[in-house]
C-alpha cells in the first residue's frame, strides 16, 4: 500500500458526519453482511465517530450554511485552519475566539472580535438545548413573561 498524499484536503466535522450517516443508511439497506467479522472495525469506528460528532453543533449544519459562513468570513482575513476550527466549534465567547485565532490581540480589535462572534452565532445553528437555555436566561434578565 502506498500513501500518495497524506494531507490532500481538510474535512470539516460536518462533512464527516454527512459521510458516515450516508454510509450507515446504505449499509442498513443492504442488510445482511453488516455483522460479518470483517465489518466489525468499520461498525465500531463509524458508531463512535458518529456519537462524538452528534454531540457537537456540526450536526445541524448544511452545505448552504457552510457556504454562507465562508463568504461571511472572507472579510475577517483568517487562515483556513482558523475558519475550520470556528466552523467545528462554534465559539460563543471572546475567550474561545482568542484560543482559535492566533495572536488575536494583535490582529483583531475588540469590536472585530464581537463582530466575529456575532457572525458565527447568527449563521451557524446552535444546539436546541443551549438556545432554549439562552432565551430563558435572557427572559429572566429582562423580566419579560415567556410568550
Amino acid at each position, binding site marked *: 500500500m502506498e500513501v500518495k498524499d497524506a494531507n*490532500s484536503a*481538510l474535512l470539516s466535522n460536518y462533512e464527516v458526519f454527512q459521510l458516515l450517516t450516508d454510509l450507515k443508511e446504505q449499509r442498513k439497506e443492504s442488510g445482511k453482511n453488516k455483522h460479518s467479522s470483517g465489518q466489525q472495525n468499520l461498525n465500531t*469506528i463509524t458508531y463512535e465517530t458518529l456519537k462524538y460528532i452528534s454531540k457537537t453543533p456540526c450536526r445541524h449544519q448544511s452545505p448552504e450554511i457552510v457556504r454562507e459562513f465562508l463568504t461571511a468570513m472572507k472579510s475577517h482575513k483568517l487562515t483556513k485552519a482558523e475558519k475550520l*476550527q470556528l466552523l467545528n466549534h462554534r465559539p460563543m465567547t471572546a475567550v474561545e475566539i482568542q484560543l482559535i485565532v492566533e495572536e488575536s490581540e494583535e490582529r483583531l480589535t475588540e469590536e472585530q472580535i464581537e463582530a466575529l462572534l456575532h457572525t458565527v452565532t447568527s449563521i451557524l445553528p446552535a444546539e436546541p438545548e443551549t438556545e432554549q437555555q439562552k432565551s430563558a436566561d435572557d427572559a429572566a434578565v429582562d423580566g419579560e413573561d415567556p410568550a
Partner: protein
Amino acid sequence: MFVLVEMVDTVRIPPWQFERKLNDSIAEELNKKLANKVVYNVGLCICLFDITKLEDAYVFPGDGASHTKVHFRYVVFRPFLDEVLIGKIKGCSPEGVHVSLGFFDDILIPPESLQQPAKFDEAEQVWVWEYETEEGAHDLYMDTGEEIRFRVVDESFVDTSPTGPSSAEATSSSEEPPRKEAPYTLAGSISEPGLGLLSWWTSN
C-alpha cells in the same frame, strides 16, 4: 480534525465475490483493511471517502482471485498541531490526565501542561488545579467523565509492526508479556485561558 488521504493499493477479490459489483467489493475490502486502524505517519483511518481510479484487474496463475490496483481517498483522523479539541476525561494518573474522544483514546495531557499550579491528589487519584483568587485558593478537580477543551501540542507515531525472532541474546525471555504500545498518541495542553474543563469557563 479529519483529513483526506490519497492512497494506492492492490485489492484482492476472491472468485466467490465476482457476482457483486466490483466497486462495492473493493469498497468493502478497503474498509475491512483500514477502518479503525492506524497507518504509520498518517493517522487513524475512519472510512473510505471515494475511489478515484480503478486500473485493470489481473488474475495471476495459481490464484483464482482478481487483483485490482485502486487509487482512493480515505478519511483519516489526524488533528493538526495547535488545534483545539473537546474530549472527555478518561482518568488521571501520575503521568497526567488521560482524555478520550470516544473513537480515539490515546490522548495524554502531561502535568507540566496543566493549568498551573496543579497537584495530584493521591487519595482520589485525580489532578487538581489550585486556582488562586482574592478570597483564597479554590481547588478545581478534574473528574472522570467531565468534558475538557485542550490544544494538541504533539503527536507521535510508533511502528508496531511485528519484528522478526529476536537475536541470540534473549534477555527478558517469554516470562513477561510484551508491552502494548499505542501506535498513535497525542499530547495535549490546557495551560491557556479558555482551556480545561468546560465548566471552568462557562459564564453562568
